[in-house]
């Protein structure tokens, strides 16, 4: 019942944002640097602004930003009506 012939939109990169507080960013850096053996999550490299890590050898990137998500973007994520 699925249609491999339909012209599919171009898929985009997966992007997930944890909305947190600036006081927790150092903890976030430590957590990413420590990795997670249970997930095969391994730290690769990083600095105060971001890092690279792998999960089962798949590359991931993380950014640490000490500012809130743009209000319009947050609003669209909650109420995405665009008619």
């Amino acid at each position, binding site marked *: 019942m699925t249609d491999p012939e339909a012209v599919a939109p171009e*898929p985009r990169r997966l992007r997930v944002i944890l*909305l947190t507080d600036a006081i927790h960013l150092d903890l*976030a850096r430590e957590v990413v640097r420590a990795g997670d053996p249970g*997930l095969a999550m391994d730290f690769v490299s990083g600095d105060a602004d971001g890092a690279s890590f792998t999960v089962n050898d798949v590359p991931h990137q993380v950014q640490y930003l000490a500012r809130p998500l743009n209000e319009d973007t947050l609003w669209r994520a909650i109420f995405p009506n665009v008619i």
Partner: protein
Amino acid sequence: MRSEPHPNHDAMVIIERDLGDHKLPALLALTDVIHALARKIPAHAIVWSPFAASPVTFFNERYEALYAGGKLPVSLWIQFAEVPVDGKRMILTFGLEELGLYELEFEVTNDHFALQMTVADILMSRMIARNEIIKDNSSDRFSGVSHEISVKISHRSSLRKKWGPVCFLDFTVDQGGQPAKGVH
């Protein structure tokens, strides 16, 4: 339905990866990563960019349902929006196009809202798992607690402005073997 995530944050941790050729494994793997990080990093909410925002408690509930009951946490990845169009309750999904699939659009009725949403959830899960768009002019049938529901799927122009084609769902609910009136 999800409740509003906490807006009073002042920082973000943004995690990215390629979707790759296998959508479902990629989504599940990233969901595992986010769950692990959110257990250690205090967060108000999780935004599956750009459309689906969830409070962490909602995220954890859906995550537990995945491993306890095998239910895909589609509502973490895809957002539903209800809009009135010509007096009808229209539901639009947001997020499937980000995955290279067609969004869903369909009318819901007060009497069969839950059943219709459940069917939409099943169809979304199927598209993601199979990595394919539901075929044009196809149909399917599902059994609810007290009703049978049929759905015809067609590719149509979206109700949204500047949007590509979508899968439009046309429901027919049978009550006691008879099609119910006014539920198309």
